């Protein structure tokens, strides 16, 4: 039963396959329409070719209150480029039409989804080729409507859990979680950090009591050492701000070239970790 559920879900399956090879699954995040509207498709292709197991696409929002400076800025640039929710879905379609098979997860804020209509959004997102959805300002206790709509349209709703989450929130989130559970490793906003907060280990442990689906860790992840560290107790690592900073800092390269260099570097040593696959599913 467990395997059936896992293999039925593209996102969990992809993470699982990576883990089977002894790797920590890699989930890069990139804001749609950053640095230009035309860069998203080639960036996503390069990420897929160079080791991404799931790709997170940021829907830009005017008031991204869970983001640090880097992702705020990428969001702002994307909005100035004329990105809106319709444009995001168009770009996702284009990504799919160019043959990208990697599971795609959208991460955004609640208001743009509300403005379109929860059901309409889920329908259009599924149609465009979105596999999963993360909403940064929608805690599990407010997620009822979205749980129903994502189920109906077979999109995975991926809950965020925090170091401060209590038992009840963890239980509730694990009940509807699909694809993976996203554990936030820091008290704070997104943005590259020097070290992985070891407290997140406790959180992952608690989450694994309530669910068999993969657990990813994100916020602050910026280098290979972090991925190796995370691989000891979780199944996947999400990184965004560090990738975006790398794209911004090496202006000589095309954005997709930078994305390639960045993820290759994280991916390279990753398969030497010797991740204990059996353990990762307990």
């Amino acid at each position, binding site marked *: 039963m467990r395997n059936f559920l896992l293999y039925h879900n593209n996102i969990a399956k992809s993470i699982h396959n990576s883990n089977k090879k002894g790797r920590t699954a890699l989930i890069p995040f990139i804001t749609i329409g950053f640095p230009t509207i035309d860069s998203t498709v080639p960036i996503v292709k390069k990420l897929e070719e160079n080791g991404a197991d799931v790709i997170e696409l940021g829907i830009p*929002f005017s008031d991204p209150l869970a983001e*640090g400076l880097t992702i705020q800025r990428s969001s702002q640039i994307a909005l100035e480029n004329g990105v809106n929710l319709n444009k995001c879905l168009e770009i996702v379609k284009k990504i799919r039409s160019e043959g990208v098979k990697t599971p795609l997860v959208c991460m955004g804020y609640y208001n743009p989804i509300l*403005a379109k209509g929860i059901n309409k959004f889920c329908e259009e997102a599924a149609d465009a080729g979105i596999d999963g959805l993360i909403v940064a300002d929608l805690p599990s206790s407010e997620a009822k409507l979205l749980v129903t709509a994502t189920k109906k349209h077979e999109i995975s709703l991926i809950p965020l859990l925090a170091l401060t989450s209590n038992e009840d929130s963890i239980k509730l989130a694990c009940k509807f979680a699909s694809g993976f559970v996203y554990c936030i490793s820091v008290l704070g906003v997104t943005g590259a950090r020097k070290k992985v907060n070891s407290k997140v280990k406790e959180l992952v442990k608690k989450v694994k009591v309530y669910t068999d689906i993969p657990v990813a860790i994100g916020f602050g992840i910026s280098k290979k050492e972090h991925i190796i560290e995370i691989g000891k107790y979780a199944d996947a690592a999400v990184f965004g701000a560090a990738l975006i900073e790398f794209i911004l800092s090496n202006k000589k390269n095309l954005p997709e070239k930078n994305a390639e260099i960045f993820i290759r570097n994280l991916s390279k040593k990753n398969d030497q970790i010797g991740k204990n696959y059996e353990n990762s599913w307990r």
Partner: protein
Amino acid sequence: MEYYKDNQIPDQNGRYGDYGGQFVPETLMAALSELTQAFEAIVNDRNFSEQLNSLLKDYVGRPSPMYYARNLSQALGGEIYIKREDLNHTGAHKINNAVGQVLLAKKLGKNRIIAETGAGQHGVATATVCAQMGLECVVYMGEEDIKRQAPNVYRMRELGTKIVSVTSGTRTLKDAINEAIRDWVTNVQNTHYLIGSAVGPHPYPKIVREFQAVIGKESREQILEKLGKLPDYVVACVGGGSNAIGIFSGFLSDLTVQLIGVEAAGEGLNQKHAATMARGKPGVLHGSMSYLLQDEFGQVLEAHSISAGLDYPGVGPEHSYLKDTERAKYVSATDEEALSGFKLLSKLEGIIPALEPAHAIGYMQSWVRKLPKNSVIILLLSGRGDKDLETVSNILNEKI
């Protein structure tokens, strides 16, 4: 309207009908439930109310007077009474909430206070109470507002508060709140976020209403004492809605009293403005569902008002509910009308109003004429205008 009498608003999920709720990053949920519990505990705590009331009396200077504005009444018609929140310590209603929440933060054992501010009145009130109680205080203020409310920036500095200039987004109140929330997510374990208006995730709108309700309670008693009857109208300006909900709450179950909130129409409702309920649609910003100025794709629009305190694209969830249930009516006044109200009250009554409540006066200039002759109106003067003198004289080109 029975709903108000049994105190079921908001419900236990912090909902005012469809409005309100808790739309925040997961990291903050534990702090919100801790805050809810602490708040429910102090509401019935004798000790707490004694402490609060003594500070309100001796430090803030309550009760604030209810003044019969004879000259204004003669000029505009009606019988106009002014509730004088401008006479509070620090010059606005904001300190009522600041005193209450700082006491609450102490209960929670949090020794660092953060706040956002637009006009600077809430920042000053928070800085003041933190100075008095010896707490660390950080205030987030938009770069734009730091320029147009300079006197309040000086005051906060003298009070020992750190001011963080917010340069993201619109550089006004909206982005100051974003920054404050980001700080809170990061420092949630030792920090209380002291929100200055009836906005934000549950339980904030309820907490702020509770601490501002003293305005409504006093007003009701004072008008009954003076006239032996209730007013026909209560008029207040609405930014996030704290002064308005404070006075409205005293009259919600008096169905004969018409409640009127005045939003900022800026350059006009078809130009740049901050008239959230007149022109917005329900949406989610800063933790709650409420009317919101937004584009068709759900991006939040920049608000505009001459007054920094009303320059906000959202509004407290209870006002959205009061609007939809028609218990209160929301209107608007332009920058120009506010300036005219500012001048009028100064000249006729010798009271220089803040630009925020000057919107209510501006609205009354055309509206009161249409009312039956002896209509009794309470105008809530939420703050005094010293902070706005420079803005006003610049705009009207009056050289010092």
